[in-house]
């Protein structure tokens, strides 16, 4: 349980994204917008990604971050937001799945 009353700025994805933006980097923000069953990260969780593929935060327990990062780089290039869906039922579509059996929907958008 994270009981700190202050932001952990060194690890906070949205603070990091703002810092990257100030450094002139292109940034994408991924957000968990829906979960079904046992999902490792709650709705509202963020993964932030820069154009080189550096990332902070998480949208799962590490299961789908790789796929989200590569989609995010497309989103940075095109500027067009994407809705991604992951779960055991999507194995063939995405080649990644959540071993816990949950399903998640992740919204990926460019910052700016």
């Amino acid at each position, binding site marked *: 349980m994270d*009981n700190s009353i202050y*932001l952990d700025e060194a690890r906070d994805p949205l603070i990091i994204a703002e810092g990257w933006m100030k450094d002139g980097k292109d940034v994408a923000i991924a957000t968990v*917008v829906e979960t079904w069953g046992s999902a490792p990260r709650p709705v509202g969780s963020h993964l932030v990604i820069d154009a080189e593929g550096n990332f902070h935060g998480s949208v799962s327990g590490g299961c789908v971050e790789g796929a989200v990062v590569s989609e995010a780089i497309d989103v940075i290039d095109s500027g067009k937001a994407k809705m991604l869906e992951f779960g055991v039922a999507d194995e063939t579509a995405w080649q990644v799945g959540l071993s816990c059996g949950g399903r998640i929907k992740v919204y990926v*958008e460019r910052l700016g």
Partner: protein
Amino acid sequence: MDPYALKTLNAERRARRAAILVTDLGDGRDRIVREGDQVAGELGQAIAKAFRSGSSGSVEAEGRTFFLNAHLPQPRLMVIGAVHISQALAPMAKIAGYPVEIVDPRTAFATPDRFPDVALHAEWPEDVLKRQPLDSYTALAAVTHDPKIDDFALKAALDANCFYVGALGSRKTHAKRVERLLALGASADQIARIHAPIGLDIGAASPAEIAVAILAQTIHAFRSRGLEAKGAAA
């Protein structure tokens, strides 16, 4: 995401103020709504609910799909008094998701031995609150019974609009406290916000039972934030 929205959101989060990022999932447009901002219709109702629950999620309104990402500061409980009640209250409140800090200038009471794993300040509330101001996501429970220690903190909690303010003591003790707080410049409306005698009326007798009553009252105050104001207006 709009860079301005991200900057605004981070500024609110750093200042321990609640904010919701509202994103239209159809066209990707987003904006920040602060607690107390007026938003009409179904979307406004969903936003008000998200501020109370702290839960994020999608909502259908005006024929569109919005995602509400609720960013609420971590609520916390500031306890004035390193007493027997506080020894039970600190671990219980932590488990319930309300981290506790304890302030008591009496060094015989405020010892790490009596309060393991708790943020403990063996100092006057005046000094601690100068460093770590109270805010509307902080609950304050004053349980020393000693006006020299409790009164300043109670006045500060009312001024900072703490979501919960409770003070230990009988009705008679509280009547005298009301006189003192009026003399300190608190208004009658402010003073009416103090829960005294402290805690939900569950017939609590032991210090640990009183701690349960205080924690339950704190949770109730947190989860019904804003509802009282609406009731008063209606």
